C-alpha cells in the first residue's frame, strides 16, 4: 500500500512538476501589483516676495506620493482596482489611505452597460481620470486645483456608462451618483464624510473620432452638481468641455494637444475668505456667483524617450470672480524605458490677482507672481498596461 501511495505521489509530482506550467498558472491567478512613487526637488522665488525680494529658495528634496495598485479580474464579468496612497512629504510619518477602491462590471449587463461602484476618480473631463504620475507635467492645472481640489473629483459613488447607438463612432455616456465628500474638500469646507450625505451628480458625454491612420480626436462635455456648503446647503453647477487631439505616426513620435474649459455657477453665503455676504441692511444674503477656468497643453514626444511641452492655465476662484490666477509652464520629460522610469523638469510661473486694500484704505489689486522650477522623478514597479488614449 505504501509503495502504491509513493508511486502515485511520484507520478503526480512528475505530471505537475513543470515549473513553467505551474508558475504561469499561479502567476495568471495573482492580481497585478504595481508600486509607483514620486519624488520632487522644488525651488521657487515666492518666499521673500512680501519683502520685495525675488530669491529662489533652497531646493527642497521631497517625497511626493506613493501609489500601490492591486488590480485583477474578479471573474469573467468584472474586475477590481485597489489603489492605495501614501502622501508626502514625510515618508515615515505618512498615513496609508485609499486613493481608489472599486469594482467594475463590464460584461453581461443589459444594454451592454458598465457599472462601477466604490471610491474612484469620476469621469469628469479628461484629466481627472489620469493619475498624476502619468501626467506629462509635474503640477496640476490651476483649474483642477481650484475647482476639483488636490485629489480631483474622487468620491464614493456608483457609475453607469452606456455606449450610444451612433454607428461606428464610439460615443459614451457616463452618469455618476456620488456621496459628495470630494465636493466638501474642494470647497475648503470641513470634511463632511461623517455628516449626512449631500449627494452629488456628474455626467460625461464623449465621442472618439479617428482622423486617419495616425490622428485621433476625443471631445467631451461634462456636468457636475452638488452641495458645496453643507451648512447652508448651497448648490453649485459645473459645466466642462474637453478636447484631446493626438498625432502618433510611430512609436518614436507623438504630439498631444489637450484642453478643458470649466464654467462654475453657484449659490454662496460667503466669499473665498469665509466672510459672509451681507445685503444693504447688513443681513446675511445668498449670492449667485459665476466663475471659470481653463487649461491647454501640448506635449511632443521625440526619439521615443524624450518629450517637451508647454501649458497655459487660467482660473478664477470658485467663489469669487475677482480672485484669479494665470499660469504658464514648460516641461521636459525623459523616459528611458517607457513609464518604468521617468524624469521631468518643469519651469512655471503662477500669477495670482485678488482684491486688496492699500495702506490708505483704498481698494487695490494684490498681485503675486511666483516662479518655480521642479524636478520630478517617478518609477513604476510591476506590470504595465497598454496606454489608453
Amino acid at each position, binding site marked *: 500500500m505504501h509503495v502504491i501511495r509513493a508511486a502515485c505521489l511520484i507520478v503526480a509530482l512528475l505530471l505537475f512538476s513543470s515549473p513553467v506550467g505551474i508558475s504561469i498558472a499561479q502567476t495568471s491567478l495573482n492580481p497585478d501589483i504595481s508600486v509607483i512613487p514620486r519624488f520632487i526637488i522644488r525651488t521657487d522665488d515666492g518666499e521673500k516676495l512680501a519683502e520685495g525680494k525675488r530669491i529662489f529658495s533652497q531646493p527642497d528634496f521631497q517625497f511626493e506620493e506613493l501609489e500601490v495598485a492591486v488590480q485583477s479580474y474578479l471573474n469573467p464579468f468584472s474586475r477590481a482596482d485597489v489603489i492605495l496612497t501614501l502622501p508626502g512629504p514625510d515618508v515615515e510619518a505618512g498615513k496609508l489611505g485609499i486613493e481608489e477602491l472599486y469594482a467594475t462590471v*463590464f460584461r453581461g449587463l443589459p444594454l451592454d452597460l458598465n457599472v462601477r461602484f466604490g471610491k474612484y476618480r469620476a469621469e469628469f473631463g479628461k484629466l481627472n481620470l489620469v493619475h498624476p504620475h502619468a501626467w506629462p507635467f509635474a503640477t496640476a492645472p490651476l483649474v483642477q486645483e481650484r475647482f476639483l481640489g488636490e485629489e480631483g473629483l474622487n468620491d464614493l459613488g456608483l457609475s453607469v456608462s452606456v455606449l450610444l447607438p451612433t454607428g461606428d463612432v464610439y460615443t459614451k455616456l457616463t452618469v455618476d451618483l456620488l456621496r459628495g465628500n470630494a465636493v466638501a474638500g474642494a470647497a475648503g469646507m470641513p470634511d463632511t464624510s461623517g455628516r449626512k450625505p449631500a449627494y452629488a451628480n456628474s455626467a460625461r458625454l464623449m465621442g472618439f473620432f479617428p482622423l486617419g491612420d495616425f490622428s485621433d480626436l476625443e471631445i467631451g462635455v461634462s456636468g457636475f452638481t452638488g452641495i458645496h456648503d453643507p451648512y447652508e446647503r448651497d448648490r453649485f453647477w459645473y459645466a466642462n468641455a474637453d478636447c484631446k487631439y493626438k498625432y502618433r505616426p510611430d*512609436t518614436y513620435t507623438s504630439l498631444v494637444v489637450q484642453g478643458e474649459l470649466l464654467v462654475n455657477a453657484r449659490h454662496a453665503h460667503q466669499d473665498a475668505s469665509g466672510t459672509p455676504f451681507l445685503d444693504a441692511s447688513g443681513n446675511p444674503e445668498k449670492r449667485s456667483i459665476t466663475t471659470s477656468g481653463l487649461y491647454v497643453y501640448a506635449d511632443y514626444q521625440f526619439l521615443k524617450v524624450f518629450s517637451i511641452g508647454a501649458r497655459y492655465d487660467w482660473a478664477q476662484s470658485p467663489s469669487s470672480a475677482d480672485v484669479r490666477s494665470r499660469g504658464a509652464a514648460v516641461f521636459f520629460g525623459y523616459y528611458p524605458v517607457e513609464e518604468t522610469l521617468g524624469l521631468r523638469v518643469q519651469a512655471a510661473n503662477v500669477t495670482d490677482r485678488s482684491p486688496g486694500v492699500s495702506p490708505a484704505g483704498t481698494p487695490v489689486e494684490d498681485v503675486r507672481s511666483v516662479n518655480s522650477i521642479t524636478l520630478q522623478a517617478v518609477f513604476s514597479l510591476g506590470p504595465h*498596461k497598454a496606454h489608453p488614449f
Partner: protein
Amino acid sequence: MKRLMSFLLALCAATASPAVRVVTTLPDLADFTRQVGGDRVTVDFIVRGDQNPHFVEVKPSYMMKLKSADLFLTIGMELEMWAPQIVDGSRNASLDVVDLSRDVRKLEIPGKVDASKGDVHRFGNPHYWLDPRNVRAMIGGIVAALAKASPADESLFRSNAGAYLKRLDEKIATWENIMKPFTGSKIITFHKSWSYLADWLQLQVAGEVEPKPGIVPSPGHTAEIIRLVRSAGIKAIVVEPFYDLSAPEQIGGATGATVLVLPTSVGGVAQAVDYIALMDYNVAALAEVLR
C-alpha cells in the same frame, strides 16, 4: 418558372445565415481567415502591417470593431498585451477570443523572467507566424473557430483550408530551395522577431541591434555589434519598417553590411498584399543580400 426560381433564390439568400464577423489582431491572421472563410466571413484587423504589434494604444475605435464581432483571433503568447483592454471595452459578451498559439511549435521559452531582461515574453517568442510551417496549426485553429461559429459551413472551411495549405506547402518548398545555398549564414536582427524564420531557413541570428528586447540601442552595444559584424563577415542587418534605422545604418555604414528592411506582417510593404506575397518578398530580399 424563371420568376419563381429567381424568387426562391432571393428568398434563400435573404434567409441564409449571415457571414461570421471576424476581427484579428494582425493582418496576417486576417489573410488566413479570408483564405479559409471565403465569402462566409467578413474580416477586419487592428494592427497595420507597418505598425509595431507590441505597442498599440487602446483606442475606443478598436473597441467598436470588436463590439459587433463574433470572433477575435489573436497571436497570443502576450504579443498583444493591449488586447484584453480592447476586449473588455467592447462590452461584447458573446465575443469568442481565440489564441492561435495553442498548437504551434514555440521557441525561446524563457526560464526566469524579470524586467532586468527587457521586454521578455514569458511564454516564449511570439513571432511564430514567420515560420510558414506553423501556419498549418494556425489554420487548424481558424477552421475550428469558424466552424464553431458557423457549423453549417465547416466542410467549406476545411476544403478552403486544404486548398490553401496545399498552395502554401508548394511555396514552402520553393522558398527552401531558394535559401538552401545560404544555410548557416549569419544575420543581425533589430529585435528578436526573426527567430522562427531563421530556424526554418537554417540561418543563424548572431546578435540583435537592441541590447535587450525593447531597449533602445546604446552606443556601447552598437560598437559591439559592429565588431561582431566585421569579425563574422555578416552581410545582412534585418529591421522591421517600424523601427528607427539610425543604429542599423550606423552599423551598416561601419561594416558594409546591408540594412534590410523586411516586414513582419502583410501590408508592411506595398508588395506584401497577403502572407504568401509577404514571404515571397522576404525570401527574395534575403537571398539577394546573402548572395
